[in-house]
């Protein structure tokens, strides 16, 4: 009981803080400072239609590299903690196969879902979406496969190679930015092209494709490790 009342006190303290913040808050009416600079200079400077993409990939590119590293470390941690200690998986129990409808539907839909994910991250600089969203959609297609076929296992060498190559290429493109353009992860190592076309905005689509592949394979790896754990 005393534990519960302490919890209640803590939460009431937060209520007090949040209430102060809520009543003193003034809604924004105009863009200020760095946001104003980003929105006004971005079309001529970087040539990406989607300002959020330009910020994630170029202006705050180093942050994104850090975020991808955190994701990589978390995926590695999951794999390390759940590694099988010389035991064969699924021993002793037979899994019931899925119904015919589910299997046919999955086989039919999975390529299209993966294609949609790739579409999202290739068009990241033109419309809403990008590497993180597209990667998540690709991982959802993998989840679909895992749910339908109980014994399904990905080809680990392929997944690992895709992940490593895209991660390394991301850093290499960043270093090329130092050598050929203004700084680390500068997108102007490739010509900016015509505003609003698919081949525009310099290296932004290239970087977002690498991010998409990396995020997709990492999330798929986390899902598979959690599924087959024993």
């Amino acid at each position, binding site marked *: 009981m005393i534990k519960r009342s302490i919890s209640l006190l803590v939460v009431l303290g937060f209520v007090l803080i949040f209430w102060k913040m809520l009543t003193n808050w003034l809604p924004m009416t105009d863009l200020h400072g760095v946001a104003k600079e980003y929105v006004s200079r971005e079309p001529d400077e970087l040539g990406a239609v989607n300002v*959020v993409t330009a910020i994630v990939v170029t202006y705050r590119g180093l942050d994104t590299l850090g975020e991808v590293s955190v994701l990589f470390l978390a995926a590695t941690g999951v794999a390390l903690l759940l590694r099988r200690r010389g035991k064969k998986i699924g021993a002793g129990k037979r899994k019931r196969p899925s119904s015919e409808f589910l299997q046919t539907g999955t086989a039919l839909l999975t390529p299209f879902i993966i294609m949609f994910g790739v579409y999202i991250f290739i068009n990241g600089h033109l419309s*809403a979406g990008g590497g993180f*969203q597209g990667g998540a*959609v690709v991982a*959802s297609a993998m*989840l679909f496969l895992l*749910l339908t076929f109980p014994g399904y296992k990905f080809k680990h060498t392929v997944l690992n190679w895709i992940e490593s190559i895209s991660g390394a290429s991301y850093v290499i493109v960043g270093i090329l930015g130092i050598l050929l353009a203004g700084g680390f992860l500068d997108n102007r190592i490739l010509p900016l092209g015509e505003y609003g076309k698919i081949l525009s905005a310099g290296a932004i689509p290239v970087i977002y494709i690498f991010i998409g592949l990396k995020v997709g394979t990492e999330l798929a790896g986390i*899902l598979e490790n959690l599924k087959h754990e024993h």
Partner: protein
Amino acid sequence: MTALVILLGSGMIVAAFAAIYLKNLIAAVVAAGIVSLFASVVYLILAAPDVAMTEAAIGAGLSTAIFIYAIKHTREEEVEND
């Protein structure tokens, strides 16, 4: 728009309480997925389509699957025949 936000917000608060107080863990995880799904609609209303896509794909989809796999592995009968 305001009415829709209030409706979604009350739905989210109810679903969050359900996620915390439901005895059945699978039902609680699905309730948390509903919180994420409604949040993605609110992001769309707040003119943030990028965030809405991420939340719908990851928060409502993958995160729910990860929780359900974890629940599957922490049940008695799963581990006894290990």
